């Protein structure tokens, strides 16, 4: 059964059509990987899934856990369990990182009809996870992403992911710019959340991360469409031949 299904999705940014009839289905509990050349529309796809306002969906459907969410508000999609780790996480001055995270965690708990986490419980869990993924504790008390290094921002995305425990996780270039230790830490976080139910969509340019996070499917996205879907063996072929052999004739 698929957790997230994208059917014939067409989307524009401004006047420019970026997604041109894209089909993709994420299976329950599986790790899907998307690879594709720069500018192919990978980030656009991930933003379309979570409802970014820059992206104007003109045709097609996004089905999440059996519900059509194509026109749903972004916060509702998030509360329903969709998470995007951004390629470029934005900085928000004056908003304390831990305070923000607690607000997000409690918004989700309220939505699910659960009691809010009290400060002590929240802090304990947050600190534990931060340690696990090698996020410096002082970053928890700084303004959200402000002045964080590239790697620190990515680790902070993983912290949020692990605290929010979403059902479908999209990671847009979570591995770009990471040193080897950071890559291991981030992979550890992802693997920890693999529970046979949660689905992942990893957007990457490098096979490196796939040494740590074992994928189930590889999709190639070119010019706004998924042009090929296969097993992990596809990566090797890609590394050898590049994208040109997948171009639609």
């Amino acid at each position, binding site marked *: 059964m698929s957790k997230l299904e994208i059917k014939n999705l067409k989307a524009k940014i401004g006047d420019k059509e970026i997604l041109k009839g894209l089909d993709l289905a994420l299976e329950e509990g599986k790790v899907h990987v998307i690879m594709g050349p720069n500018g192919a529309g990978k980030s656009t796809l991930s933003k379309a899934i979570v409802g970014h306002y820059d992206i104007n969906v003109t045709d097609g459907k996004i089905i999440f856990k059996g519900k059509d969410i194509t026109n749903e508000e972004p916060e509702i999609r998030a509360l329903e369990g969709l998470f995007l780790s951004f390629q470029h996480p934005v900085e928000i001055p004056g*908003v304390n990182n831990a305070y923000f995270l607690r607000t997000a965690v409690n*918004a989700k708990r309220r939505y699910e009809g659960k009691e809010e986490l009290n400060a002590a419980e929240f802090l304990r869990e947050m600190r534990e996870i931060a340690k696990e993924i090698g996020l410096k504790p002082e970053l928890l008390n700084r303004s959200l992403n402000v002045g964080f290094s590239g790697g620190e921002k990515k680790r902070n995305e993983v912290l949020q992911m692990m605290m929010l425990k979403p059902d479908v996780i999209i990671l847009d270039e979570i591995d770009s710019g990471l040193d080897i230790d950071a890559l291991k830490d981030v992979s550890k976080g992802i693997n920890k959340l693999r529970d046979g139910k949660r689905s992942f969509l990893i957007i990457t340019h490098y096979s490196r991360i796939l040494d740590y996070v074992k994928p189930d499917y590889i999709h190639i996205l070119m010019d706004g469409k998924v042009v090929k879907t296969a097993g992990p063996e596809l990566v090797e072929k890609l590394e050898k031949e590049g994208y040109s052999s997948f171009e639609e004739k």
Partner: protein
Amino acid sequence: MAQEEVNKAISGEYKLGFEIDIEEDKVPPGLNEDIIRFISKKKNEPEWMTELRLKAYRKWLTMEEPHWAKLDYEPIDYQAISYYAAPKKGVDSLDEVDPKILEAYNKLGIPLEEQKQLAGVKVAVDAVVDSVSVKTTYQEELKKLGIIFCSISEAIRDYPELVKKYMFSVVPMNDNFFAALNSAVFTDGTFVYIPKGVRCPMELSTYFRINAINTGQFERTLIIADEGSYVSYNEGCSAPMRDENQLHAAVVELIALKDAEIKYSTIQNWYPGDEEGRGGIYNFVTKRGLCEGENSKISWTQVETGSSITWKYPSCILKGDNSVGEFYSVAITTLAQQADTGTKMIHIGKNTTSTIISKGISAMKGQNTYRGLVKFYSSAKGARNYSECDSLLIGDKCGAHTFPYLESKDSEGQIEHEATTTKISDEQLFYLRQRGISEEDAVSMIVHGFCKEVFNQLPMEYAVEARALLNLTLEGSVG
């Protein structure tokens, strides 16, 4: 993005716009020497004060309303304003305050009974309705320490020497058009004197309420901190919702002697008018502090959320060596509000330092201008200033403008200036919403983050109020 939603989210209702249903004594509209004599007489003022008022009035007649600020408003008809209005009951005896006024102040969250405390903390309050002070709390307790906390009318009668010495000493009666008008017709306000070496044990505050229709409010506040003393003073205000504009032209003078410190905080929440710019308070205010003695310090913190027009530049004259001036400001203009606000830091003494942190937030059709002057006299060897002026825009119909001026006759002085203008970006909003935070909460989180440095300067009880007020201003019908 859905800009309308954000607009809705930030145009919270004005919740303090009720009228207090009381009988008031009111003079007919118009201004002339007879009216000034009438006000002076109503307040049982000595002859010298009446003469000073008349002198100010005659100066005012020769002056012109200034129009250099970036403000656009209908001309003010000074003859259409009533210059005196007072609740009929309870003016002469403090114990006979009209229950309706007590009720109204309760509704505003300002306790006028001493046993009721604000957030569990003792705060002494001077309550001013239109032209008169109706009640001042904790006076007896403060008197034991030699602290004078009373209405300015009482001070003129009971402490003429202090008033003669200090009134007009920081803001001369002909300082500017609005100050001159105030000097002629000022009605009530607060007087504070902290004696040598005394640290005022509680927050002092004044709550101004405009109630009567077609009247102006012209309060005058004078605070003197004698050598080595400390006081934290707070001012709040509100007004009913009306379609006509009402004029508020206040003057505040602060004097800090050697080693003294005055912390002055304002939460300004006059009625802002409506979306089309109908109604609202015209707020033309002159606030200035003199750091007279060595090592003295004056700190202004203001949170400006109300008024349709705000013209206000709380300033510090740093005369004493090593004296310190600070200005922390959050000014929010939404609806059709316009604010032209900032500060002047005048460095005269050696090693004087000043800090300016200004945060302007504009939304809807709001126009927000920062105007600041830093001036170094040649005597101000080793003076330093740090200025930071940040503007936050929400939407694209609003505006932010920054006019920092610098005059330096001393090449040794150091000035550091930083200015930024940012838009609440769709990316920031989206990031928070992607984490499940509603749009309204996301806007509020970003704006609070932007104001944090300034709110941190407010006394705790007032910081809570300021945050709540900001939320109210941001509150709307989203979701």
